[in-house]
């Protein structure tokens, strides 16, 4: 066998893949058992698979591009409405300062830029109010990054409560957005256009360095009530 360097590299690529196949043959060719994925993973997966390329595009985009788009977003998407609010409302200025808000063709992206917490006790927030029949069915062990709690009723309807996210991405093609306040803080309400799709309430609390969201296919007015009742409950 007589090879040029480039031919060897093609052979090497193929051999590296074949070595990988042989190393993991049992797993690649077997059916294997269905893993018992965590609730948190299943929620992330559902979001990802609903729009995989949009989600991936957001994850892969360099930070400087986000910053450029953010500037455009603040100027164009929020426009006069946000300008008016910014002129009079210290809370709104805080909201814009602490979050990077992107409004793109088919999704929005909010990134929390304030000081974040590094103490797991800071995650001990719970809603005092829940609609009748809902109870906790899943709760993350708080770590230093993120915490999810899921509440469900007997009909299988779930309400998700996240805190500590660095960023939130969502669909903006099939929803209606409005600015609201949650206990005086600027917040975003996203109401799904289609019945059964998720509604979102997203807000930040800069005093504790955290972004929160409550989301569900349940009535959005109830989600607002839940968000307004979120209280620090040390354990």
């Amino acid at each position: 066998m007589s090879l040029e360097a480039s031919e060897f590299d093609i052979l090497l690529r193929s051999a590296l893949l074949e070595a990988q196949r042989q190393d993991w043959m049992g797993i690649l060719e077997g059916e294997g058992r269905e893993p018992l994925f965590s609730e948190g993973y299943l929620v992330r997966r559902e979001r990802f698979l609903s729009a995989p390329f949009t989600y991936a595009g957001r994850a892969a985009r360099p930070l400087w591009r986000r910053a450029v788009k953010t500037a455009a977003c603040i100027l164009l998407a929020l426009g006069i409405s946000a300008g008016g609010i910014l002129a009079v409302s210290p809370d709104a200025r805080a909201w814009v300062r602490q979050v990077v808000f992107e409004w793109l063709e088919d999704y929005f992206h909010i990134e929390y830029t304030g000081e974040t917490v590094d103490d797991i006790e800071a995650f001990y927030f719970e809603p005092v109010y829940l609609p009748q029949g809902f109870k906790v069915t899943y709760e993350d062990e708080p770590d230093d990054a993120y915490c999810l709690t899921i509440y469900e009723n007997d009909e299988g309807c779930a309400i998700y409560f996240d805190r500590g996210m660095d960023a939130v991405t969502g669909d903006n093609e099939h929803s209606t957005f409005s600015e609201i306040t949650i206990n005086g803080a600027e917040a975003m309400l996203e109401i799904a256009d289609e019945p059964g799709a998720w509604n979102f309430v997203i807000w930040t609390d800069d005093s504790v360095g955290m972004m929160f969201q409550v989301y569900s296919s349940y009535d959005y007015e109830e989600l607002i009530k839940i968000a307004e009742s979120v209280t620090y409950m040390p354990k």
Partner: protein
Amino acid sequence: MLALCLSMLEGEADKELFLRFHARYEKRLYAVAMTLLGSPEQSEDAVQETMVRIASHFEDFKKIYQRDRREVGPWCVTIVKHISLDILRKEGRTEPLDETWDVPTPDSTQAENAYQRLVELIRSMPETYREALELRFVLEYSNKEVARALGLTENTAAARISRGRRLLIQRLREEGYELGSV
């Protein structure tokens, strides 16, 4: 308008292909990650990151899928393996740079060709070199990207790739395989 319709159709077809790939490989990639990491939570993170990377480089995936579907499995295992090793590196759970290479004895009962022997050698070579070669030649990273992925300087990454490649060529030559001007 026609271009827009075609691009929408293409987008839907891509999504369909990706969802089929995800359904087929999710648990396999999870099993690979579990083998390397031993932690269900970290393995979920590794699988999610792998899938996001594949979706964000979907044109690369399609090229492989169209060229030779048998390569899809080992290609995505290469990605999840690298992500898992990266998690271990960040936690200081990797072995220090290991250059020892326990070279397997060639199978004398059958005449091996150079390709089969190359595969055997890769399977036995130190992970330090193998991972650098995988990033460079399988995932087609530039030297700069390999450096960033492995936390090395660009020069060190280039040297590691070059040395790994040279070790394989040298070993094949020592065993009498003719490789020409490589």
